């Protein structure tokens, strides 16, 4: 009978925080208390552990059992401490000899029958083991290995289906366990550049996004050449894009295809994505594919940005390093859209909960779509618009300026002509592999360009960067001057055109921005009625 100190960790946002689990088994009236700011689910650990130990053949000692979770001021919202508590009681009661198992990071929720579940956010918690120099993770694994096992890399892990296995493991001196057979972690598919022979190359990169519905091949969409080109530019420079046009013209379909234009995530990016999905308790996007998220316009602020009583990643973070598609942008709640400002500027969402800040990475490509007005037919040549002028103004007025500032490309999407509709979509050579290759090359140029400048793509260029990287020669400068004066562009619109022109030049493999580049950039300037 004594006190014991074991190690576990808890998830806060997408971060893992070390928690030490102190167990004291003292003589006295039998009781079982957990202190140290446990959430209700953690406090209920008493009942789970009591039943699990009894069903494993170790009834709770008739003693006063006190469990302290330190640091006490750190909120502990998830049930991950059961394994540590159960083993700690057995250790303190003399059923388990002290040994190396006491240094491991113990993670798992116990069921009444003694089986152990893996915790949420395993990848974040594994970071704690790495940071604290623990010998490894002992993780609940009833029902098979969690998908995160492929991402643990240098962190060793033993997978324990139930308490019985955990006790056997601890008694046998905590062997590190065999590494998972092979290294099942899939590598990102190679770039399609040289590998025309490899069937997975191009296809893998542009197959399904995070959701099954995301699997759209740009080449399968008829017409809309202008919009497709705009998507290529958006993908290349990270520019926010808004498509507007009457319903049924393929805006959503186009948006879904943009994932196929983006290069597969870098290993470091894949790791970030996996960590976020792990913390959200969701399966990750398929390997080599960037996430695609398309929340419905009724989404709440917390679900979009991240948050809730226990901070969880929102749609913005689930779209991290991928694409966030907001269909019917003007219909989103104002409070939700307002919240996009910080992530669009800084690439993170931070929320304050229970006196503690949680930060969620949220660096994504914003693709939005909107009908031109509430009825959807403003500017439509075939169907008359039924909106009043007041309704027209109101429709667009919901979009706050800071969000529109982050949209560089405005793309009208019109009705298809009869010829376009009747042409087989896949007629002609596929263009996606080439477009994807151009995007990849343009991205590489940007990576080199912005080394040490603190930004990653053209869309993030501010005044300073524009002066350095988007200087115009006399010819293109004249083109921009004329447009500036004729259309009475704002300074903002001017900068926006420079950013887009820079990306178009990059897609062209051109160091200089030419007249043609500026002219094309000007074609994405057109804004729908209401905010001009």
């Amino acid at each position, binding site marked *: 009978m004594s006190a014991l100190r074991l190690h576990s960790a808890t998830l806060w946002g997408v971060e893992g925080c070390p928690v030490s689990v102190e167990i004291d088994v003292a003589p*006295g*009236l*039998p*009781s079982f208390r957990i202190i140290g700011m446990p959430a209700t689910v953690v406090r209920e650990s008493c009942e789970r552990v009591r039943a699990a130990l009894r069903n494993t053949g170790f009834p709770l000692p*008739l003693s006063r059992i006190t469990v302290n979770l330190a640091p006490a001021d750190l909120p502990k919202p998830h049930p991950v401490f059961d394994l540590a508590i159960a083993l700690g009681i057995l250790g303190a009661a003399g059923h388990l000899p002290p040994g190396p198992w006491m240094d491991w990071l113990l993670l798992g929720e116990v069921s009444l029958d003694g089986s152990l579940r893996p915790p949420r956010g395993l990848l974040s918690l594994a970071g704690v083991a790495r940071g604290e120099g623990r010998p490894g993770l002992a993780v609940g694994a009833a029902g098979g290995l969690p998908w995160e096992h492929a991402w643990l890399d240098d962190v060793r892990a033993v997978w324990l289906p139930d308490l019985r296995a955990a006790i056997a493991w601890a008694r046998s001196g905590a062997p590190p366990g065999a590494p998972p057979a092979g290294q099942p972690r899939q590598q990102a598919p190679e770039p399609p550049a040289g590998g025309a022979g490899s069937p997975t190359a191009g296809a893998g990169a542009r197959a399904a996004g995070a959701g099954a519905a995301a699997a759209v091949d740009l080449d399968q969409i008829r017409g809309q050449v202008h919009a497709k080109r705009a998507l290529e530019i958006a993908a290349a420079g990270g520019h926010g894009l808004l498509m507007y046009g009457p319903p049924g013209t393929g805006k959503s379909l186009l948006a879904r295809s943009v994932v196929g234009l983006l290069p597969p995530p870098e290993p470091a990016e894949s790791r970030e994505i996996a960590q976020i999905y792990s913390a959200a308790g969701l399966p990750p996007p398929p390997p080599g594919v960037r996430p695609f998220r398309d929340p419905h316009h009724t989404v709440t602020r917390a679900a979009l940005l991240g948050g809730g009583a226990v901070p969880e990643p929102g749609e913005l973070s689930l779209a991290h390093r991928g694409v966030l598609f907001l269909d019917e942008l003007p219909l989103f709640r104002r409070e939700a859209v307002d919240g996009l400002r910080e992530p669009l500027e800084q690439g993170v969402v931070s929320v304050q909960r229970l006196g503690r800040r949680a930060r969620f990475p949220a660096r994504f490509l914003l693709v939005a779509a909107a009908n031109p007005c509430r009825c959807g037919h403003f500017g439509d040549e075939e169907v008359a618009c039924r909106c009043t002028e007041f309704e027209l103004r109101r429709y667009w007025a919901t979009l706050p300026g800071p969000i529109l500032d982050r949209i560089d490309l405005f793309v009208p999407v019109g009705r298809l002509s009869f010829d376009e509709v009747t042409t087989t979509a896949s007629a002609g050579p596929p263009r996606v592999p080439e477009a994807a290759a151009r995007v990849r090359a343009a991205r590489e140029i940007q990576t080199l360009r912005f080394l040490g400048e603190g930004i990653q793509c053209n869309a993030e260029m501010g005044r300073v960067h524009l002066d350095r990287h988007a200087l115009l020669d006399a010819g293109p400068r004249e083109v921009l001057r004329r447009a500036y004066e004729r259309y009475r562009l704002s300074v903002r619109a001017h900068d926006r055109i420079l950013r887009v022109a820079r990306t178009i030049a990059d897609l062209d493999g051109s160091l200089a921005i030419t007249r043609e580049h500026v002219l094309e950039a000007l074609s994405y300037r057109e804004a729908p009625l209401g905010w001009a």
Partner: protein
Amino acid sequence: MGVETTAAERRRRLGRWGEAAAAEYLRGLGFVVLASGYRSPRGEVDLVCRDGRWLVFVEVKTRLSRAAGAPEEAVTPAKQRRLAAAARHFLQQHRLHAVPYRFDVVAVDVGLVDGRPGLPRIRHYRSAFTPAG
């Protein structure tokens, strides 16, 4: 034997038997039993004793088997609160405003021999809990 008894009657009888066993045990330790089965409007105290300068309120729990868990496990926080309320009533009734007091629990496991109580196993928890609030 042969006398028909209800379950409740049997339970009461077991309780009284346990209390007697506990009282005998405590007397052996030098406790003076002041009252047994003390009732207040808000709860009961099985035994009220004096242990040196201490006034001791004792909860006795008796079990025939472990089917429902150990006897001492039945002293739940709710039971503790009732006990504390009864103790306060006792202290007021007897104008005991400055006496140090505590709560003990005595667990009695009855070993049955041929259906009759054998030698009880007794566990005594001194100052088993401090009532909250």
